[in-house]
C-alpha cells in the first residue's frame, strides 16, 4: 500500500486508470453525501416527470421519463469516469479546452438546430447536444488554469482585465445564440473563478458598478435612443417579475401561474389533482418550470426536500473547495459550486416569482440531456478534486 502510493507520487500519470485496490479506494474517497444528493435529485426528476408528463407526448406516455432516465444513467457513468481522472490534467489542457469551448459555441451558428428562434444545439439522429451546457464546466476548467498560470504575470489590474476578457468572450457568443440565461451563468462562473483566484475586492466593486451601469444601459438607456440590445421577449421576461400584474399576458402571466401552482400545493401537495401544472397553465413544465410541478404536486414537503438536497450539494461542494490539495482544484471547485448555486437560485427564484424568467434550467431536475449530463460531469470533477485531496493527505500521512 505504501509502496503503491510512493510509485504514484514518483511518476504522476493522471490519466492512467488506477487498477485493483486503488480503484476501490477511488470510490471510497468519493464524497458520498454529494453523490447521494446528486443521484437523488436526478432520480426525483425522473419520478416527477413520470407523474407530470404522461399525457404530453401523444401515444408515448414515457417519452420524457425514458429519455431523462437514460440521460441520468449516462450522467452517472460520465461522473464515475471523471472521478478516475486527476483533474489537474485539465490545467495542462486549458488552451485546448478553451479553444474547444469557443469553437463549439460558435459552430452552432453554422450547424446548429434552430428552436424557437434560437440556435443553441447540434441535432443528431437520436439526441441533440447543446455545447453551452457543457461549456459551463469547460469554462471553469480552462479559466482556472489561466488564472493559476498567469498569477505572477502583469499587475493585478491587468490580470483582472485578462480574466474578464477570457470569460466574457464565450459568454458573448452564447448571448448571441441567443441564450441570455446560459451566458449569465458563464459570467457568474468567470467571476467565481476570479473570486477564488484572489482578485482584489476593490476590483469586484468596480465590476459590480459596471454591471449595474450596463443593466441600466441595456434596459433603459439603449432602448431610449433606439438601440435595442435585448430582444423584446427577453426584456419583457427580465422585467415582468417586477410588476407581474401589469403583464397579465405573456411572460408575467406564466410566472403568475407558476406562483399560483406552487402556492396551491400548500403543505403536502395536490398530487394528481394538480391542475396548474397538469392543464397547461404553467408552460415548460418539464424544463424550466419543473420546480412548480414539484411545488404543486408534492407541496412544501416536496419542494423543501428538493431545496435541501441542493443545499446539501452546495455545502459539500464548498467543503471540497476547502479541501483541495492545490489552488487549481480550489478554483475549479469554487467555479462549479458557485455556478450551480447561481442556477439553482435563479431557476427556483423564477418559479417562485422573485427572479426574472431567464431560461436557466434547474440543474439535474429540468428535462434535457445536455444539462443533466453536463451537471453530472461537473460533480464528477468535484469528486475528483475530493479524491485527489484525500489521496494526497493519505499519502502524506503514510509518508
Amino acid at each position, binding site marked *: 500500500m505504501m509502496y503503491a502510493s510512493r510509485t504514484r507520487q514518483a511518476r504522476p500519470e493522471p490519466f492512467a486508470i488506477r487498477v485493483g485496490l486503488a480503484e476501490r479506494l477511488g470510490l471510497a474517497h468519493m464524497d458520498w453525501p454529494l453523490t447521494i444528493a446528486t443521484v437523488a435529485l436526478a432520480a426525483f426528476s425522473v419520478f416527477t416527470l413520470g407523474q407530470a408528463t404522461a399525457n404530453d407526448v401523444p401515444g408515448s406516455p414515457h417519452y420524457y421519463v425514458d429519455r431523462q432516465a437514460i440521460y441520468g444513467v449516462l450522467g452517472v457513468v460520465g461522473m464515475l469516469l471523471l472521478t478516475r481522472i486527476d483533474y489537474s490534467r485539465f490545467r495542462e489542457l486549458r488552451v485546448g479546452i478553451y479553444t474547444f469551448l469557443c469553437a463549439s459555441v460558435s459552430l452552432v451558428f453554422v450547424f446548429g438546430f434552430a428552436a424557437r428562434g434560437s440556435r443553441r444545439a447540434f441535432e443528431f439522429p437520436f439526441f441533440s447536444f447543446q455545447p453551452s451546457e457543457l461549456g459551463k464546466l469547460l469554462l471553469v476548467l480552462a479559466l482556472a488554469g489561466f488564472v493559476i498560470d498567469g*498569477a505572477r504575470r502583469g499587475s493585478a489590474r491587468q490580470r483582472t482585465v485578462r480574466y474578464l476578457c477570457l470569460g466574457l468572450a464565450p459568454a458573448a457568443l452564447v448571448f448571441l445564440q441567443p441564450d441570455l440565461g446560459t451566458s449569465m451563468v458563464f459570467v457568474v462562473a468567470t467571476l467565481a473563478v476570479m473570486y477564488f483566484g484572489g482578485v482584489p475586492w476593490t476590483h469586484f466593486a468596480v465590476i459590480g458598478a459596471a454591471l449595474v451601469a450596463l443593466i441600466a444601459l441595456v434596459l433603459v438607456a439603449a432602448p431610449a435612443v433606439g438601440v435595442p440590445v435585448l430582444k423584446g421577449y427577453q426584456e419583457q421576461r427580465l422585467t415582468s417579475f417586477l410588476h407581474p400584474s401589469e403583464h397579465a399576458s405573456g411572460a408575467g402571466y406564466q410566472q403568475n401561474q407558476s406562483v399560483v401552482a406552487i402556492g396551491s400545493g400548500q403543505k403536502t401537495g395536490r398530487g394528481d389533482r394538480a391542475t396548474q401544472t397538469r*392543464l397547461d*397553465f404553467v408552460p415548460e413544465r418539464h424544463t424550466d418550470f419543473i420546480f412548480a410541478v414539484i411545488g404543486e404536486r408534492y407541496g*412544501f414537503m416536496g419542494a423543501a426536500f428538493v*431545496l435541501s438536497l441542493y443545499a446539501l450539494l452546495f455545502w459539500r461542494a*464548498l467543503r471540497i473547495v*476547502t479541501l483541495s490539495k492545490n489552488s487549481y482544484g480550489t478554483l475549479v471547485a469554487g467555479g462549479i459550486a458557485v455556478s450551480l448555486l447561481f442556477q439553482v437560485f435563479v431557476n427556483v427564484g423564477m418559479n417562485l416569482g422573485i427572479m426574472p424568467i431567464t431560461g436557466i434550467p434547474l440543474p439535474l431536475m429540468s428535462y434535457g440531456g445536455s444539462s443533466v449530463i453536463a451537471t453530472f460531469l461537473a460533480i464528477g470533477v468535484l469528486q475528483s478534486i475530493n479524491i485527489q485531496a484525500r489521496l494526497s493527505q493519505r499519502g502524506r500521512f503514510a509518508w
Partner: protein
Amino acid sequence: MYERWNDRPGANKRLALRIAVLGGVAVALFGVLFFRLWDLQVLSGAGYLAEAKNNRTREFKVIAPRGDILDREGNVLVDNRTSLALQLNTQKLPEGPAEERDELRRLGGLAHMSLRKVRRTIRESEEVAAGAPVTLRKDVGYDLVYYLEENQRRFPGVAVQRVFVRDYPDGSRAAHVVGSVGEVSEEELKEPPYKGLEPGDEVGKGGVEYTYDRYLRGEPGLTKIQVNALGQPTPGGQLVSRPPSPGDNLKLTIDPDVQAAGESALAARGLPGAFVTMSVHDGELLGLGSFPTYDPTVFTEPKTQAQVNELYRDPVTAPLTDRATESYYPTGSTFKIVTALAALEGKVITPSTTIVDGGKLTVGTQSFQNAGGASYGALTLVPALEVSSDVFFYELGYDMWDSGQLQRWAAKLGIGKESGLDIPGETEGLVPSRSWRNQLFKEGETERPWSAGDNIQLATGQGDLQTNPLQLAIAYAALGNDGTIVTPHVGKEVEDAAGRVLKEFDPKPRRKIKIDPAHRTAIMEGLHQAAQGPQGTSYGIFGGFPVEVAGKTGTAQRPPHADQSWYAVLAPYPDPRIVTVVTMEEGGFGAESAAPAALQILEAYFEKHASSVSASGTGLAE
C-alpha cells in the same frame, strides 16, 4: 507555478474569508428561497389553491378549410370562402323558460327568424348532434358581430364563428362530379372513415367530395383559452394551440374545355341528357355532365321551398340525378358494336359474311323492320354499320338468341356492370337474358318467357336493355384500345397547398379481353364509315370534321317517351385517344341532337390538341 496563497488553502486566511463570505451568501440565498416557499405554500397556500381552482380552460375548435378541387389544368372548380356564422350553445341559455324564450326571441330578431323557426332549428340540430353548438344562421354581417360583442351579457351562449363555406366560382360547372358537402350524420359518425369527427363537422356528401373526403377534409386545430369564473377569456390566457391543418387539394382529370363544351352542348338543346368524354387508354374522364344541372351553392345556404321542389320533387327534370352514370337507358344502335363483336368472336359471321337486308326480319308471327322502312340489300359488316342496317343485326341477334353469346359479350365489355367509377351512385343496369326473363316469368312478373324476339331487340340496343352513357363509353373504349376494360375515374392526384403531388390515382384496368385484330379493324372501319363515309348515318355531322373519327348513332325507343338520341364516337381514327358518348332524352334520331353535341365536344378537344394529331397523323397517347 504556485499562487501567492500557497498550496494549503485551509491555512490561508484570505481564502478562508472568501469561502466564509460565499457560504454566508449561500445561506442567505437558500434562506430567501425557503422563506418564499414557506410564504407561498404554508402562509398563503389556501388563497392560491382557491385561485388555482378558479382557473378554468375552454377549448375552441379551429375549423380547417377543406382542400380545393381543381380541374386537370389547375383551374379552381371548388374552393372556400369564409363566412361568419351565428352559433348558439344551448347549454348556456338562461335557466328559466321565460328568460330562455326571451333570449331566443331576441336572437331570432337578429337572425331574421321567427321564434318558432329558432326553436325548430335548435331541435333539428339537437337530433343530429346533441350538445354541439347550433348554427342559427350562416353569412351574418359584421354589424351583427359588433352588436353581439357589445351586448355579450344579454346573449349568453351566443357566439359568432368564422366558418368556411364551399364556393363554386363557375356555378354549376361539373356539379355532378364535384358533389357537395354537408354536416356529418349520426350514422356516418359510427363508421371508421369518420373516426375522430364531431357532430357539426362537414364532410363530403356526394361526388368526389365524398369519395376523396379523407384527403380534402383537413384537420381542425385547437385553441385552449383560460377563462374566469364568468366564462370570459382572461387576457393573455391563451394556453396551447394547435393550428388547423387545411385539407389537401384534389386535382381532377376533367378538362375545362371539354367539360364546358359538353355542358353548353347539352344546355343548348335544353333536353335532359348526359355526356361522357374519356381517355380510352387509362379511363381518365375528361368530361362528364348531366342536364338539367344545378348549382351546388344551394347546399351551402338555406333553401327556399321552390328550390327544394325543383331539386328533389320534379321527377322529369331531376337535376340531382347524374344521367351519365345514374340512368337506365336503352342505347339504340350504338349497341351494335357489342352485337358485332359477339357474332365475330363467336364465329357466327366473319367480316366478309354477307347478309341480305330485305327491309325486315320475320320470326314466327313477329316482324322486325328497319327504321324508316329502308332496305339495303346484300351487306357485309362494314356497310351494315355504315348505314346502320337493323335487319343485319336482327339476323345476328336471332342467330345468337339461344346461345347467351350476346349477353356474355355485353358483360365482358362492362354493359350492365358497375364500372368502379370514383363517384358514388352509379347504376348497374341490366342486359336482358334468358335466365332473367324466365325467372320473371316464373314469378308471374311478365307474360312470356325468353324468346328470340328479346334477343333480336337486344341486338339493336332496344327492348329491356338498361345501361348508361358511362358503360357505353367503357365498351367503346375497349374497342378502341384493343380490349382493355378501363376503370373510369375523375380523381387525378392529391396535392398539398404548395402544389406538391402527394398521391396519384391511376386505377388498374378492370380486365383485359381478347379481340381478334381483324374483327376490331372491321368494326372500327364500319364506325368510321358510319361517321365519315358518304352513306354514313352521321356523315352530315362529321363528314366535314378535319379529324378522322369512328362514331355510331343510336335511336332508342322508350315508350311512352319520344325516341332518345345517342351518339358514341372514338377519335382519332384508327387509333383513338378519346371516346365521347352523348345522349339526349326525346332527342330523336342519333344524328339529330346527340351527334351535333358530340361534335361540339370533339371540336373543343381537338382545338386544344390539334398539333399532336396533325403531327402524328393518328392519335397517340398524350
